[in-house]
C-alpha cells in the first residue's frame, strides 16, 4: 500500500497538466462564448447572441453539415479500406504479416503537411493524375473537381486516417481466439456466416474505436480543407480559425467551438456505451 502523501504526489503532475492545458482553456473558451465584440474590443457583456447567430445565419449550419458529411464520408471510406486490410493481415497474411503491418504504419511517420502537398501535386490541374488522364486520352482537358473540392478533402483525410482505423480493428481481430472460428465451421457455418456471426460482432469494439477516430479527427481537421479543399471544401475548423484570426470575433469563434466540442463529446459518449455493449469479457 502506498501512503496518501505518495499518491497525491504522483497524481499531481497529470492533474496539473490536465487542469492547465485542458480544463482552463476550455473554461476560458466557454466563458468567451457568452461575451461580445464591440468597436473591435471584446466586452464582458453576458449574452446569448453568439449562439443565436449560429442557428439563424445559415452559413454556420451549412458548413457544420458539410463538415459532418465529409467526416462521415471519410469514416466510411477508411472503414471500407481499413477493415479488409486488417482482416487480410490478421487471417491470411501468414509470414508476411509483420512486413505488411510495418507498411501500414510507415505513412504515419511522414508529416501530415508533406502528404497534403503530395495530394496537391497529384490532383492539381497540371498535376500527375490529370497529366496521365490526358496522356491516356481519357480526358482532353484537366478535370477540375479533383482538387479544391470536398472530394479532395475526403480523399486526403481518408489517406491520413485509414491507419488509425486499421489499428484498432487489427488489434480486435488479433484477439479473437482462432478456435472460435473452427467451432463455428464445425457447427456448420460457412465462412461467410462465420464472418457475419462471429468475426464481425467480436471485432465491433475495434471497428467502433476506429470509426470514432476517423470521424472525430476529420470533424476537427482544418489543414486538409486549407490545402486541398478550396472554397467548396471549407470545414467548420476553418470557420473557427478565421473567426479567431482575421475576423477577430473570439466570442462567436468560441461559441462555434463549444458546439463542436459538445458534438464530439456526445459522439464519444454514444460510441462508449455502444462499445460496452459489444464487449463480453
Amino acid at each position, binding site marked *: 500500500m502506498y501512503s496518501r502523501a505518495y499518491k497525491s504526489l504522483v497524481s499531481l503532475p497529470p492533474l496539473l497538466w490536465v487542469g492547465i492545458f485542458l480544463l482552463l482553456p476550455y473554461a476560458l473558451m466557454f466563458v468567451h462564448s457568452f461575451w461580445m465584440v464591440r468597436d473591435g474590443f471584446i466586452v464582458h457583456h453576458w449574452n446569448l447572441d453568439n449562439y443565436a447567430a449560429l442557428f439563424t445565419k445559415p452559413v454556420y449550419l451549412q458548413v457544420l453539415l458539410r463538415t459532418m458529411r465529409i467526416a462521415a464520408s471519410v469514416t466510411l471510406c477508411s472503414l471500407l479500406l481499413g477493415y479488409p486490410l486488417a482482416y487480410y493481415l490478421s487471417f491470411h497474411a501468414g509470414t508476411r504479416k509483420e512486413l505488411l503491418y510495418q507498411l501500414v504504419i510507415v505513412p504515419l511517420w511522414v508529416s501530415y503537411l508533406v502528404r497534403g502537398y503530395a495530394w496537391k501535386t497529384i490532383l492539381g490541374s497540371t498535376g500527375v493524375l490529370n497529366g496521365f488522364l490526358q496522356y491516356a486520352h481519357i480526358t482532353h482537358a484537366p478535370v477540375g473537381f479533383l482538387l479544391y473540392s470536398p472530394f479532395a478533402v475526403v480523399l486526403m483525410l481518408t489517406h491520413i486516417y485509414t491507419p488509425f482505423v486499421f489499428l484498432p480493428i487489427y488489434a480486435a481481430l488479433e484477439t479473437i481466439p482462432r478456435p472460435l472460428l473452427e467451432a463455428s465451421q464445425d457447427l*456448420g457455418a460457412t465462412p461467410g456466416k462465420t464472418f457475419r456471426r462471429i468475426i464481425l460482432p467480436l471485432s465491433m469494439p475495434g471497428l467502433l474505436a476506429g470509426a470514432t477516430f476517423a470521424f472525430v479527427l476529420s470533424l476537427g481537421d482544418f489543414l486538409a480543407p486549407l490545402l486541398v479543399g478550396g472554397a467548396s471544401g471549407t470545414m467548420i475548423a476553418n470557420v473557427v480559425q478565421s473567426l479567431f484570426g482575421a475576423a477577430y470575433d473570439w466570442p462567436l469563434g468560441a461559441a462555434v467551438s463549444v458546439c463542436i466540442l459538445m458534438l464530439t463529446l456526445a459522439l464519444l459518449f454514444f460510441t462508449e456505451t455502444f462499445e460496452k455493449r459489444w464487449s463480453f469479457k
Partner: protein
Amino acid sequence: MSASVANGSHVNVAAGGTLLEVRSVAKKFGAATVLKNISLDIAAGEFLTLLGESGSGKTTLLRLIAGFEAPTSGEIWMSGQRLDTLPPYRRPVNTVFQHYALFPHMSVQENVAYGLHVKGTAAGEATSRAEEALRMVKMHEFAGARPAKLSGGQQQRVALARALVNRPQLLLLDEPLSALDANLRKQMQSELKSLQRELGITFLFVTHDQEEAMALSDRIALLRGGALEQIASPREIYGHPATAYAAQFIGQTNLLHADVRGGWAVCGALRWPTGEADGPAIFSLRPEVIACARGDEASAGAVAFRGVVRQQLFGGANETLEIACGPEQILRVRIPAAEPLSGEHTFTFFPADAIRVRA
C-alpha cells in the same frame, strides 16, 4: 507389418458396421511428419479413444477428421462418403474443443442453438432442441447466461450440448476434460460415458490420460510418434500389451529383458518357464501379478524368488513395494494393504503372467 494388427484378438463393440474409415492417412507439416500412414476403423456406436503423449499425432488425427487440416496422403471415409475432401462445415461430425471455444458474445442458449441456426433450422425447433440439449447436460437453468459467467465444468457441459444438439453421427472430443480438476473430471467421465450409451452416438475421444482412456473406451488406439502402436480394448491392451511402450504407457509394469534358452527365460534373479523361442526377449510383468508369499506356502505352478523390500508406498487399498532381487534389479510389486514390511521376503508369480512384448 502395421502395428494396428498387433494383437489378433477380436473386440466386440456396440452393434453396427463401420462408421468411419481412416485409410493410410499421413500428415506432414513442412518437413515434420506428424502422422505416418495411419489406418483405423471406427464402428458405429463405439467409444474409441486416441491415446498418446503430446506430439504423438492424436490431436492432428482428430483435426483431420473434423476438417481443420487436410491429409498429405490417404483418405477418410464415413458411411460410404468421402470425408477428407469436404470443408468442415459440410461434415456430419461435431467437435468438443479442448478449451470449449464457446462464443463469448452469445448466451448459453444462443451458443447451443448456433449450429441449428446456421443450418437454417426453424427458430421454434432450434429453441426447443437447444433447450432439450441443455436439459440433457443439466445446464438449462443457465440458458440466459454468458459463457464468461460459467465455471470450467459448466462451460464443458455447454460445449457438449452445443455439439450434441446437431445430432452428429460422430462426436470428436479433444481432451475435453483436461482443464478440469480431478474430482470434477471423474464425475464428467462417468456422465460422458452414460451420455454416450444413452444417445448411441459414436465418440472419438482424444486424451493423454491412460486412466481416463481405460475407464471410458470400448477400444483404445495408442499412438506413438505419429504411428499406431496398438489398437485394442482396454482389457486386451492392459492384459496383453503388444509392445514394451504400450505396456509402460498403459498402467505400470516391470519390463524384464530376459534371455530365453531351452524353454526357460532368465532375467537376473528371475527364472521361469516359457514357450518362446531361444534368444533375447522382453517380458512385461505387471506389479499386481507378483504376490508376497508370507510363510512358506507357494501355489502350484508359481515361480518364487527372493527380494529385499526397499520402499513401501501405502495407497489405501493396496501397497506398492519396490523390491531389490539382485544387484541391479528392482521390481515394483503391488499387494493388498498390509502392515509395514521390511527385509527379505519370498515373492511369487505365474509364468503365464509374464507377457512377451516387442521392443
